[in-house]
């Protein structure tokens, strides 16, 4: 959830108003409006080419928007050059200055702000301590591992206590273990320093675990901005539904009250199954694989299906089945305590009504 405004925070609010960026004939960012609360951690998530980096670069000042405004802490920064925005930034590749040692790298923003040398040294060492690299100041960047270099970049971005920290896929160059470690590190820094963080990633797991709210972009357009749980449980459209996690998409006929599976059962949906009103006719019923359970075929209120594959994976089992019309359905069930099934078995699927979501057909 967004932090309450009353919580103590050192962060600045960011107000993105109708942002638009045109590259030639391509509209990389198309009417994006997003308000980031002071001290909030927002992830911009989307496939490559979705415009997420362009939005970030517009906040940083490296891209000049074709239209719209960037307002940071009430100040219109749209035309302000990057070095006057007082923003900390971590780039995808470490971008440490190779001819300067670690301490001078971290102290660089302080030097730009005219901080005296002794004070620079002290604050740089403190920032290195914050990222657990105390005592590394005399080394050259090339002598550090990738993870350590990215920590130095992080220290450099926070050393002058900016109120906004921007991160452009900062962990994508790191291996998996290091990435998880850095995720925790960044979360810790966020809560310790209380700054506003905007974090670009194409890794949904990263977005879900780290961010207070996640903004999903596709083809330059904002799809949904929600906390992780809402995004996962109530994605606002088919794109968001399919982009985050696994989702079964079942074609249905919708008459305004009931949905009928093709060649199959009629399903009564709760009122809130559709996020936006869905017109009668063809529609899509979405349900997460882990919300489905199965029982004996032919039981009342179940959907008839035939098991095609069973993939045992320790704690969980993936069951791939076909509905009457051949539509594929995936189930993720706990391996223990289940009546075992094998390919060819007929089963009946059930699902709690609140897990059912209805979307207009392929509108995205």
């Amino acid at each position, binding site marked *: 959830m967004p932090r309450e405004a009353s919580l103590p925070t050192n962060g600045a609010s960011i107000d993105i108003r109708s942002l638009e960026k045109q590259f030639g004939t391509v509209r990389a960012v198309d009417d994006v409006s997003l308000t980031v609360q002071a001290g909030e951690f927002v992830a911009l998530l989307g496939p490559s080419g979705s415009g997420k980096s362009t939005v970030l670069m517009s906040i*940083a*000042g*490296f891209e000049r928007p074709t239209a719209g405004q960037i307002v940071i802490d009430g100040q219109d920064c749209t035309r302000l*050059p*990057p*070095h006057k925005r*007082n*923003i*900390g*930034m971590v*780039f995808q*590749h470490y*971008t*440490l*200055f*190779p*001819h300067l*040692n670690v301490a001078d790298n971290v102290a*660089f*923003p302080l030097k*730009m*702000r005219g901080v005296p040398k002794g004070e620079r040294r002290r604050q740089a060492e403190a920032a290195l301590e914050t990222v657990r690299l105390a005592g590394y100041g005399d080394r*050259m*960047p*090339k*002598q550090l591992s990738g993870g350590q270099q990215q920590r130095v*970049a992080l220290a*450099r*971005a926070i050393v*002058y206590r900016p109120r906004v920290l*921007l991160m452009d896929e900062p962990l994508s160059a790191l291996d998996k273990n290091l990435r998880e470690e850095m995720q925790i590190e960044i979360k810790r820094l966020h809560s310790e320093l209380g700054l506003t963080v905007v974090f670009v990633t194409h890794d949904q797991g990263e977005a879900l675990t780290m961010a207070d709210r996640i903004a999903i972009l596709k083809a330059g357009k904002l799809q949904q901005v929600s906390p992780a749980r809402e995004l996962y449980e109530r994605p606002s459209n088919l794109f968001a539904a399919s982009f985050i996690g696994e989702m079964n998409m079942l074609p249905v006929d919708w008459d305004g009250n009931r949905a009928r599976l093709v060649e199959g059962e009629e399903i009564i949906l709760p009122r809130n199954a559709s996020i936006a009103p869905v017109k009668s006719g063809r529609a899509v019923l979405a349900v997460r694989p882990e919300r489905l359970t199965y029982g004996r075929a032919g039981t009342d209120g179940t959907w008839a299906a035939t098991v095609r594959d069973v993939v045992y994976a320790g704690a969980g089992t993936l069951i791939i089945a076909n509905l009457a019309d051949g539509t594929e359905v995936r189930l993720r069930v706990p391996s223990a305590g289940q009546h075992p099934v094998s390919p060819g078995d007929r089963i009946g699927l059930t699902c709690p009504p609140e897990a059912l979501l209805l979307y207009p057909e392929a509108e995205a």
Partner: protein
Amino acid sequence: MNARSLLLNAYVYAVLVFILLPILIILPMSFSESNYLAFPPEGFTLRWFQSYFGDARWMAATWFSVRIAVLTAITTAVIGTMATYALVRGAGNMGTLFQALLIGPIVVPHIALAVALYLFFQSTGLSGTTLGYVLAHSLIAMPFTVFTVAAALSSVDPALEDAAMSCGASRFTAFRLITLPMILPNVFAGGLFAFIISFDEPVIAFFLAGIRDKTLPRMMFDDIEQNLTPVIPAIAVLLTLLSIAVLIGAGLLKRMADRRAAGVQES
């Protein structure tokens, strides 16, 4: 060592021998006791070196050449670095045209360039002036400086300047404190090349020379026409030594540049 680097080494040494070969002829000739250029040389004397250093006209020409070469080196280093920056980092669609324009002076025969500059400088009063020489020499030296600097600049990550700007540096400060130190050895090397190109440039000097100020190569041509004494090989030996010194200097700078690029701290 693989076949490719073996071949490369052989090639480099072949070029070196080819370049150094003339010394084998001019070196003994510069010590010859005879009063005119002759091969094989006779005896041994340092008098041609003495007459070079002792002659005010030779010295004036030398200092004139040094002055032009230094100014050319500075001009090409500064303008060449700026041009390279635009070429490597910006330029966009203009890049190809821009590059062609820069390579132009290599492709166009110097004699054609010299005639064109002669006509232009005559009408603008630049002929025979220091400024005229510096402009002309910068023109022909520019491509070499640009290539030397571009080699270094293209290996510097443009995101480094973005990073510096996000730290609060203006674009110029970012260039000055981050990019420039990383390419500085190549900028110096480019300037050295320009110095040498200017210092022993004969063709344009031939056309642009005024009555008063003559460059060293121009003076040498005059002397060959009128006297043909062994002072010519003596000067040639000195020029060759200078070129070798510059080559070694450029080599050292390149090693420094590589070390900087590798991020090794200098002692």
